[in-house]
């Protein structure tokens, strides 16, 4: 079968393939009153590095008119021709006459076609020479301005969103219900396994650590349940859930909307007189407002069951005793304080995700950058808000 389709390489084609075997030599021969630069072999881009330095050196040292002799060159490409032209120009700059000899017509054409393009140094390079301190100040100032600018735009975006959301309250017909429920599923229901697993483990860790420390005091072990209840319901469940959702949904919002911006879909929407805030942002943020409290409920339950398992394992307390113990010590306000934080977190996650998505440009990597930024900012703001809430609720005495 293969013999039948035997396909001999055409003459001269295969030789042009052998880039490794090609050799190039450069010699300076002094004949009478002239210096002859003699190239022989393949003057092609793969071989240039062998002679480039030597040739430039030779031009610098030349004392007589130069003749570049290409008669022994077997192959020439544009890069090789460019090198020859560079040498010739260099020689002329140094006030030496230079002549190129070639007996090959196509080589001469190439030499003519391979033009030297010079380009003046750009202004940025001069800028780099400014003193270090000034550049440092400049960088700091720029960073601060950028952050202030970002904050301003984010607040503006939030205002616009709230305006749209209020409008939707009065005219629910305008709400994209399909989109809303799709995002409730995506951000809520699909996050249940990961959220419940993580909070189960956190609940175990908190209960285990508490029981371990409290076991030093006789009879104090019972407070492990109280400790678990406060830590989980007030802080941990809601924080872990918000961080997981920020990682999952904030990034996916940025990626989805960013891809749409890069693809011109948002521009198409705007040109039709549609508002991306209504079509894209509102369903996502409202979906998070619905799904995050529900996720926190799931997280509370699974973290408490994780704690129950750990307490049963370390202290031998049965599940029934744990439940009645929990009933005795639990306070509703811990649960409501935890839940009260979720709408704020939901808005932060949703707005940051959508806002960063809308910042995308047509540059392909911009979406990638923005996705990272949106997750980092969302998690940062969640933890910051949580700290503020802790102070706030303590001051209120709840």
């Amino acid at each position: 079968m293969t013999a039948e389709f035997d396909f001999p390489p055409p003459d001269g084609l295969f030789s042009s393939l052998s880039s490794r075997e090609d050799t190039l030599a450069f010699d300076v021969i002094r004949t009478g009153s002239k210096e002859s630069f003699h190239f022989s072999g393949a003057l092609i881009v793969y071989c240039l590095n062998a002679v480039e330095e030597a040739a430039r050196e030779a031009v610098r040292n030349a004392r007589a008119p130069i003749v570049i002799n290409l008669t022994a060159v077997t192959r020439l490409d544009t890069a090789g021709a460019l090198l020859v032209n560079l040498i010739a120009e260099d020689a002329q700059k140094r006030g030496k006459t230079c002549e190129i000899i070639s007996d090959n017509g196509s080589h001469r054409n190439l030499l003519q076609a391979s033009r030297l393009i010079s380009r003046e140094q750009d202004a940025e390079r001069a800028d780099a020479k400014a003193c270090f301190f000034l550049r440092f100040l400049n960088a700091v100032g720029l960073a601060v301005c950028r952050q202030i600018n970002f904050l301003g735009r984010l607040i503006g975006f939030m205002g616009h969103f709230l305006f749209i959301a209020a409008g939707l309250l009065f005219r629910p017909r305008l709400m994209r219900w399909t989109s809303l429920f799709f995002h409730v599923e995506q951000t809520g229901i699909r996050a249940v396994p990961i959220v419940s697993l993580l909070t189960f483990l956190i609940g175990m860790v908190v209960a285990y650590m508490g029981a371990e420390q409290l076991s030093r005091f006789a009879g104090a072990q019972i407070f492990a349940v109280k400790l678990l209840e406060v830590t989980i319901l007030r802080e941990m469940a809601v924080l872990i859930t918000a961080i997981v959702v920020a990682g999952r949904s904030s990034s996916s919002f940025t990626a989805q909307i960013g891809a749409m911006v890069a693809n011109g879909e948002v521009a198409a929407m705007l040109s039709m007189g549609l508002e991306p805030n209504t079509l894209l942002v509102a369903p996502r943020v409202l979906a998070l407002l619905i799904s995050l409290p529900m996720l926190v409920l799931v997280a509370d339950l699974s973290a408490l069951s994780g704690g129950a398992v750990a307490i049963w394992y370390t202290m031998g307390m049965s599940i029934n005793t744990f439940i009645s113990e929990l009933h005795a010590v639990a306070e509703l306000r811990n649960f409501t304080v935890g839940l009260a934080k979720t709408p704020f977190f939901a808005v932060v996650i949703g707005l940051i995700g959508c806002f960063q998505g809308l910042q995308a440009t047509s540059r392909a990597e911009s979406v990638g950058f923005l996705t990272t930024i949106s997750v980092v900012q969302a998690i940062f703001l969640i933890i910051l808000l949580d700290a503020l809430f802790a102070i706030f609720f303590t001051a209120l005495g709840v």
Partner: protein
Amino acid sequence: MDEALPIADVSASSSSEAIIRLHRVDNRFNTLVVHENLDLDIRKGEILGIIGGSGTGKSILLRTILGLHHASAGEIFVMGVNMNTASEEKKKRIRKQWGVLFQDGALFSSLTVGENIAFPLREFTSVSKSMREAISLMKLDLVGLPLSAYDLYPGELSGGMKKRAGLARALALDPAILLLDEPTAGLDPLGAADFDRLLLGLRAGLGLTVCMVTHDLDSLHAVCDRVAVLAEKRIYAVDSIANLLHVKHPWIQEYFTGPRGRMASHARGLAALCQWEHSGADQR
């Protein structure tokens, strides 16, 4: 191959000058047969256009030649090397011998235009940095981009400039073969005409072999030596446009003698006439 009949067996034709040869290539996607028993020779030094209706697999054909898509059956020879059986080493050397321009340029978006052009030089050769810059500036000039484009990122370029920059990158290593996917699509008529002239100039200067998938009738008339028609799952005919006009296939007839086809050939006739008159005037 002179007679414009559907070609049953291209391998019978003069093979000595074929730089790329496809032999009985099949492309199947599950039950969908895109190509069946496809034969095509691309001769050294020619500019070959590939045309075909939507969904006839023009881009798949190009990707098959490039090895980005593995053909279901058949053999592909590039410069006499069987790309199915050749060692990875040999295939790498073949890949350095062709330059490819993808439809939207496929420039690396994190690099400037200059860095994009210098990229193959940096990867495959050991020329010095200053020489790399000189070479990339030369290529930039060669494809007709202004110097100011050198430091721009692909995102900052217009569609036509992206194509030119992509071409400059494809030409960076002075390839023997240039494969182009719709090089003039999305260019304005003047830009497309410029591109045609550029291709002809490159072919004349560098002895390139060019294979282009195109829909641009003007471009076909202006630059292609031969045109391969993809129809009925194979290369139905490959010949000069003048000869293709005699092929009795409804799609080919419609393509070249439909309103736009007529206009393009008419325009070419006019251009030739103008040129003839011009040169006549010069002689006088």
